[in-house]
């Protein structure tokens, strides 16, 4: 390993902390212990590690966080500022990584199981242990190992076979740093049975001026002919750093739509991995990032086509202003037996300032010979001629720019099917575009 001395220090400090936190009597003690070892072995990514080349998470942890410092409780009263009004949903609120039953509301139903993961570990032990840690790879990613060893809570959803769940499930993750630095590790497990369907939305917000860091892992298993819609709205204040891993395992004829909206924050790293382990699968991955100030948003996606006749489509779009930095890395694997695969990927970026940057890299590895794959990355400025055209009709410069950016974002937004979610995002994004970006 090419880790520097300081990296090693942060790694060993954190590894020691993970070891100390292990509880021998925990239901998942074995899994956690293994993960703590995996973390120590892998170590936090070194400064030059390829997977984190543009995203200096290790340095930030080292410089801005005292990892041994406990995370304060946070103010539950703040949560109302961040919720989606008018959306009929089951909600789970996590404040500084701790489940807040008083702010959450889960309808009683026999249609499905929605529980904080810690509770599920006790009440649905066999089902949870069958899936927990089986998909997100602790050996491949130190943050996943850290999370597996140290997660505090999160969502457990089990949708039994043939149940179509119309009512979305929303997770609010609030970081309140008004009483000091916050570091959290949350974990979700989503199990969708055959022919079942569910929509889950996670929203990330933060308050307070101290730095915060969250490490979140979601594992989802989507059985045959089932559907999962997964939304992530990252709308943080200045000092939030987050590293997330979402790993989705898809069986035959399953359908998955993921939406990742990154609208703010200091540093956001999203790992999204879809394993298409079946035939006739359809997967759509949509992303939109609107960045300003010195925000860094890094989307690393993987689509792994393992069987024939599946379809994946990926569309990520970004607008960067100020000193903002965007990173996109899209891996597509088409395994030897995955003939007749259709895999499409596009990443489009607009840079509004000369100091904004984007690094975009498609990575296609295709072993099958009868496939249709395409990818395209673009980055550029707003079309000056189009701006002039709009202004020549009497529209002021800011509105003209907002109109064009809105149209640019629209290609992603139009795929959001839930009308309340769509309207919420629509408002959030147009307000943002009509302000000074």
């Amino acid at each position: 390993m090419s880790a520097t001395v300081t990296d090693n220090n942060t790694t060993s400090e954190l590894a020691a902390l993970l070891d100390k936190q292990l509880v021998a009597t925990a239901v998942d003690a074995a899994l956690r212990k293994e993960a703590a070892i995996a973390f120590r072995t892998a170590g936090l990514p070194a400064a030059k590690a390829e997977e984190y080349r543009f995203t200096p998470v290790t340095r930030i942890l080292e410089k801005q966080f005292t990892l041994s410092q406990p995370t304060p409780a946070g103010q539950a009263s703040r949560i109302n500022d961040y919720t989606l009004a008018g959306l009929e949903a089951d909600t789970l609120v996590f404040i500084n990584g701790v489940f807040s039953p008083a702010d959450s509301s889960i309808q009683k139903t026999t249609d499905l199981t929605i529980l904080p993961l810690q509770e599920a570990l006790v009440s649905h032990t066999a089902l949870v242990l069958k899936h927990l840690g089986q998909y997100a790879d602790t050996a491949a990613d130190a943050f996943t190992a850290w999370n597996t060893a140290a997660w505090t809570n999160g969502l457990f959803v089990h949708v039994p076979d043939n149940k179509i769940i119309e009512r979305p499930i929303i997770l609010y993750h609030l970081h309140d740093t008004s009483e000091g630095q916050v570091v959290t590790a949350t974990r979700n497990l989503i199990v969708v049975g055959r022919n079942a369907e569910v929509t889950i939305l996670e929203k990330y917000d933060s308050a307070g001026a101290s730095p915060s860091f969250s490490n979140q892992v979601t594992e989802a298993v989507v059985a045959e002919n089932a559907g999962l819609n997964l939304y992530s709205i990252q709308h943080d204040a200045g000092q939030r750093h987050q590293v997330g891993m979402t790993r989705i395992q898809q069986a035959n004829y399953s359908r998955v739509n993921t939406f990742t909206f990154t609208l703010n924050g200091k540093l956001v790293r999203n790992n999204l991995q879809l394993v298409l382990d079946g035939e006739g699968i359809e997967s759509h991955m949509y992303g939109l990032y609107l960045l300003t100030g010195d925000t860094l948003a890094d989307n690393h996606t993987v689509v792994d086509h393992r069987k024939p006749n599946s379809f994946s489509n990926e569309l990520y779009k970004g607008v960067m202003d100020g000193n903002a930095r965007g990173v996109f890395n899209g891996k597509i694997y088409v395994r030897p037996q995955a003939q007749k695969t259709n895999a499409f990927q596009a990443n489009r970026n607009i840079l509004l300032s000369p100091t904004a940057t984007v690094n975009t890299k498609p990575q296609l590895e295709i072993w099958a010979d009868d496939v249709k794959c395409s990818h395209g990355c673009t980055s550029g400025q707003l079309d000056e001629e189009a701006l002039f055209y709009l202004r020549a009709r009497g529209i002021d410069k800011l509105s003209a720019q907002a109109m064009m950016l809105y149209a640019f974002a629209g290609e992603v937004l139009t795929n959001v099917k839930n009308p309340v979610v769509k309207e919420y995002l629509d408002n959030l994004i147009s307000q943002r575009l009509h302000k000074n970006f």
Partner: protein
Amino acid sequence: MLTIKNLQAKIGEKQILNGINLEVKPGEVHAIMGPNGSGKSTLASVLAGREEYEVTGGEVSFEGKDLLEMAPEDRAREGVFLAFQYPVEIPGVSTINFMKTAVNQIREYRGQPTLDAVSFLGVMKEKMKLVEIDQALLNRALNEGFSGGEKKRNEIFQMAMLEPKLAVLDETDSGLDIDALKIVSNGVNKLRNKSNAVIVVTHYQRLLDYIVPDFVHVLYKGKIVKSGTKELALELEAKGYDWIKEEVSVL
């Protein structure tokens, strides 16, 4: 209405306009003709406020105000309209939405109440008839995938919506077949009245059969070298531009 005095402009290091003088009064139609590269489109662009062009001398006054000082949107709000030679395609922005924003921003500028969706639609339907344009087209992304004729008709539709005092038509006729040309000209003629004016920039006399000018000016090497009435356009059609060039070189 419009007074251009000794207007000079360049793009990059290339001087294109070398002292244009022109006076346009309400109710008049002026045609600006000239060989390729004579500065016709530059003149249209400078009037509309295209930023790539740098005005190096002279003045332009529009209804007593200094036009060159204004941002492009303010020129439009004051009543100047440019029909683009190459209308821009803007994906994701429908003509209707865009026009609604434009009409209302102009109304606000002029201290008029903004139009609600219903009144806007009413005005729009009326103007659509003028240029024989279909609403389905206006629901689509602005000019995206439009034919040449559809794009030009859309320009005249926008002109009808904005009711400018001065319309500058930059080669609106190029690329149009005769049917489209008639529709476009018809639209322009219906919009003409005693208080507005039109500047028609064109390479071909053909358009002037339909939009009949009061004055014809020949632009050559960034200057108006000859002015006359509509007969001048016919003469240019018959004899080409060489005799003009010769006349200029003699001077």
